[in-house]
């Protein structure tokens, strides 16, 4: 049971990330492929503050959200002038750049490669409490995201996704919308990063690599573009599936490769048969 609660918590983290990524990829059509970097920034900010300065974890999480948002926007600004595909490529590069940054510069507890020793509040210690807390936070993120995408701003995002030039023709600045939503996405990813650390009690650079970004892409792609429900479905489906592999008797050394191969196959299948994903409304923006 405890184990399931832990997996539940893990799923919550990835749901938040997927929603954050879907906000930019699905609703705004910005091909974000480097969110692992922001996840890492969030995780490291929260963990460092909590471990080295004894900042209350939830406060640290809030700060982490802000920092991630800031980093996200700062990394976005220079990339804004890039056309869709080169934009994707540049964000992809972020994964590698930030990995080396984390690996070479990020603080680490002596003798290990990363950070442990979080001083967690009661609400995050026991398995039950942690799951409940994460579920609550995830719910908040879902509601916030829903509020955003159903708002006039969200409408503008979806408009800009298809016809940025027409958006300026009706007197709204599409670029501003993009920056705003990217910041929101960054903040959410930062929160997820903090919760990720709280779920694992530990973070190190190997958690924030290209493969994490790919996982996000798969979750969003499978769940469905521009669909909050999809971003919930995606991680729930895939994580519970791969974790269930542990239980249905498959020797555990195959879960790793099977999972990776599965993700690969899913990506191909999606691109051929259903580019908008299970619950998606739109196609990928080319």
């Amino acid at each position, binding site marked *: 049971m405890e184990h399931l609660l832990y997996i539940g918590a893990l799923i919550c983290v990835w749901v938040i990330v997927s929603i954050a990524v879907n906000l930019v990829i699905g609703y705004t059509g910005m091909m974000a492929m480097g969110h692992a970097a922001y996840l890492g920034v969030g995780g490291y900010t929260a963990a460092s503050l909590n471990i080295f300065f004894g900042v209350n974890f939830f406060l640290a999480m809030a700060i982490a959200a802000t920092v991630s948002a800031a980093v996200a926007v700062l990394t976005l600004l220079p990339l804004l002038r890039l056309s869709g595909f080169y934009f994707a490529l540049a964000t992809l590069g972020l994964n590698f750049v930030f990995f080396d940054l984390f690996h070479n510069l990020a603080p680490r507890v002596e003798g*290990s490669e990363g950070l442990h020793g979080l001083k967690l509040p009661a609400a995050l210690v026991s398995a039950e409490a942690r799951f409940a807390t994460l579920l609550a936070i995830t719910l908040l993120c879902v509601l916030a995201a829903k509020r955003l995408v159903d708002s006039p701003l969200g409408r503008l995002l979806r408009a800009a996704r298809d016809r940025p030039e027409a958006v300026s023709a009706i007197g709204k600045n599409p670029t501003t919308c993009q920056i705003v939503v990217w910041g929101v996405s960054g903040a959410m990813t930062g929160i997820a990063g903090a919760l990720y650390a709280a779920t694992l009690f530990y973070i190190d650079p190997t958690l924030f690599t290209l493969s994490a970004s790919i996982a996000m892409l798969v979750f969003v792609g499978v769940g469905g573009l521009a669909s909050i429900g999809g971003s919930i479905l995606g991680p729930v489906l895939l994580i519970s599936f791969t974790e269930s592999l542990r239980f249905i008797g498959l020797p555990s050394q195959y879960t790793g490769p099977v999972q990776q191969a599965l993700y690969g196959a899913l990506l191909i299948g999606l691109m051929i048969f259903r580019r908008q994903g299970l619950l998606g409304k739109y196609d990928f923006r080319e």
Partner: protein
Amino acid sequence: MRLYPIRNLLFAIASVLVALPLALAPRAALAQAAKAASGEPYRIGVTYPLSGPQGAWGQLLIPSMEIAVQHVNAAGGVNGRPLSLVIEDTKGNPEGAVSAMRKVVQVDRVAAILTIFTNVVSAQMPLADQLKVPLLSPVEAPGLVAKSEWAFAHSPLLSRTLPLVSQRWQRDKVKRLFAFYPNTPIAKVGSPIVKAEADRLGIQYEETLFKLGDTDFRGLITRAKNFNPDAIFIFGHGTPDEGVIMKQTRELGMTTQMYNGCACVTVKSYREAAGKAAEGVIYAGFKYDVAAAKKLIDAYRARLGFDPDYGGLEVYDMVFMIAEGIRKYGYSGDGIRRGLTEIKDFRSIGGGLVSMDKDRQSLVAVGLYQVKDASKPEFVELKE
């Protein structure tokens, strides 16, 4: 809209897929928990990388544990009950480490865990404190296990192996020493120790870090070359990378004598990567007395067709250490922990006696060896 039929279908599939694990998991959990309670074998958790970049280690070391378990059980088991291993893949990364550990502890209810790798152990230590389950691993990063009273290490620390090598340096009048470390915690703690030793002996010292998983180290080696050392010291995790470095060193025209801080040359993949370049290498490491280890070596050869490396000896020991803990204080996390802390003059399969120090780091017997033929694990112990 038109999509609805498809959607409903997809929803159906989706819900089934979600239901599947939720339905299966608890049953599996109960089943296993029940077994443990009705108490036949004592279960030991093994959280090792079986897939992913470090996957090879699981494949190499687990057989050696299984052999140890066989030997224990053949000798009547522990308090008349057999041992058994519950193996989970960590994929060598923190998330996998935590998932695997939670699974073996919370689902399979094991009372002790054999694990490996600094990043995995770091990720598991906070959990060990919480779940009160001892971790026993061959990590070689000094100070790591000191962080948690539930973490134990059975491995030769550099502080024990280096003196043997440095005697050699003195004997051979080494004047200029160049050292290679992987960019991992080991290096971060290893390099100052070596540097201090070099200073003590008045040896010119220069070092560089290499990235595990890289295949082209010639840039670094060129550095070494420019430094023109008369001794090269490599200290890592016994990964093939170090073998590749040795080979590429030779291929850049350096004939300098090479030393290694661990018994990596006993690792097959390492020897293969190094090729002829490994010959003549002098290394200090975990005591590996072929005669003493015969019963392990034979069994291991029978299974995998080659000899176990020094890690195989370490993990073999670990199974016996845990068995001893259970024997003394019974099958419980705390019991086994006490057992491990009290280990004294434990006879290692490699020969030599082992005791735990107060930081839960084993003090192992070490030896100085030179590689004769790289194609097979042939090395001679060097005595002064």
